[in-house]
């Protein structure tokens, strides 16, 4: 006959073992769940990475397309008509020369036309690779650009609060991208905002280079610019967005009755 106390002890030990096994099983389940979550997390990160890569590729294509479009437009709208006109004029001069009615005044006009065509081609080349930027750096180029806008009608101001050599740490390619973003922003402001006062603020926030344009014209909000970019058929806004994406930067549009602003933040790896 078994002792009831011994039987209870056996039961207790069995329950204890079951309890411990349950704890160990729980830990195993936790490890499996954790590992599954880690894998899922990795998968999501990979997906995001792929998506980002895809966006970068698309951005590069958009930028290339917009550059090509601009060059084609420049050549087609200005250089091409000039050269066609020159060809006609040269034929006219040849005929006039044969008839002894050649006019040196007319010829001088055509030389001016050639100068214009050369200037146009030079300007297109400069657009492709601005020599001033390469020679004097980003900040000087931006300052020069703003100064050029200044006139009797438009008041300009430049506030340079940069203390470190952050802009010098940017690669030439990045500087070119920032310059293009800035040009596109200024182009849009000149076309649509109708400002007569503008202030360019250059500063740093942590390891970010900040270009902030304050103006008293018609402002725009982030939502409005997003809608415009989506609806836009042209490449301007899309290439602007693409360039900012390539720079890993951010643009913040602030709309205000008296003073609106556009803030461009570019991270600089130190």
């Amino acid at each position, binding site marked *: 006959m078994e002792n009831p106390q011994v039987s209870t*002890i056996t039961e207790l030990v069995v329950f204890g073992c079951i309890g411990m096994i349950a704890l160990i099983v729980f830990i195993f389940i936790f490890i499996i769940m954790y590992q599954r979550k880690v894998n899922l997390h990795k998968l999501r990160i990979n997906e995001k990475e792929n998506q980002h890569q895809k966006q970068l590729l698309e951005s590069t294509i958009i930028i290339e397309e917009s550059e090509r479009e601009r060059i084609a437009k420049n050549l087609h709208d200005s250089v091409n008509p000039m050269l066609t006109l020159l060809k006609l004029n040269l034929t006219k001069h040849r005929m006039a020369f044969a008839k002894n009615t050649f006019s040196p005044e007319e010829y001088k006009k055509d030389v001016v036309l050639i100068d214009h065509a050369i200037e146009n081609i030079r300007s297109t080349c400069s657009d492709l690779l601005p020599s001033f930027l390469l020679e004097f750096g980003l900040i000087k180029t931006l300052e020069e650009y703003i100064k050029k806008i200044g006139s009797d009608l438009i008041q300009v101001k430049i506030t340079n609060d940069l203390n470190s050599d952050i802009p010098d740490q940017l690669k030439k390619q990045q500087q070119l991208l920032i310059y293009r973003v800035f040009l596109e922003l200024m182009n849009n402001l000149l076309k649509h905002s109708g400002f007569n006062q503008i202030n360019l603020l250059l500063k740093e926030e942590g390891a970010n280079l900040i270009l902030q344009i304050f103006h008293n014209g018609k402002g725009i909000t982030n939502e409005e610019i997003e809608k415009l970019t989506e609806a836009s058929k042209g490449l301007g806004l899309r290439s602007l967005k693409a360039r900012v994406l390539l720079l890993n930067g951010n643009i913040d549009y602030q709309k205000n009755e008296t003073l609106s602003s556009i803030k461009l933040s570019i991270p600089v790896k130190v």
Partner: protein
Amino acid sequence: MEIMKYTLKVLPDVSVFSTLIPFVFALLSYKKLSTELKLIFYLVVAAMVTELISSVVPFLTNSSNIVFINSYYIVETILITLFYVKITANRYWNYVMLLLCLAACIWSLVYMFGTSKDSMNIIAVAIESVSVIVYALLTYYYFLKNIEHANIFGVPVFWMNTAFLLFFGGNLFLHIFSNYLLENALYSFFELWGLIHSSLNISFYLLISIGFWKTRKFQL
């Protein structure tokens, strides 16, 4: 049977000396120990000192070592609570843990210096076990919620938490078991109790040692 007898004889001694393993591992990686791991190191040191005193005092003074063990439980409660407070980001939950710890300590001190000087504070042990099990489960939940490490086995806190869960889970069972043995005066079964207790102690310190070992390669 001979092996069984030998194991029963040797295991408590092995259990006493098993505190040395995490102590050595912690010393080897002391510079890399974070604040929460240092708390566990202090716990190991406290356990070593208690084991030493508890083993020596009865021989030297012929008196009970209960007071040292009860004191150790207070230190253990404080250090484990601080460990969980340190690794838990929830401020309110931290207040709850600290308040519980404070209440447990006050009660344990009253018990120690009150009428029950020569008895084990078994209720405190049970409450401590339940609390630590809850803390450990919540820590697992926190790990699952915030996936911060690609390899959980490389995280020292995971090993410490696992050690606490298994040790205090087992302790809770031992508490019920010892209560039953005492109530029915089944003193001959205390060898079995000792065997389980020693096994739990050894596994606890081994898991803690792994945690300290992992500190050497762990990066936040």
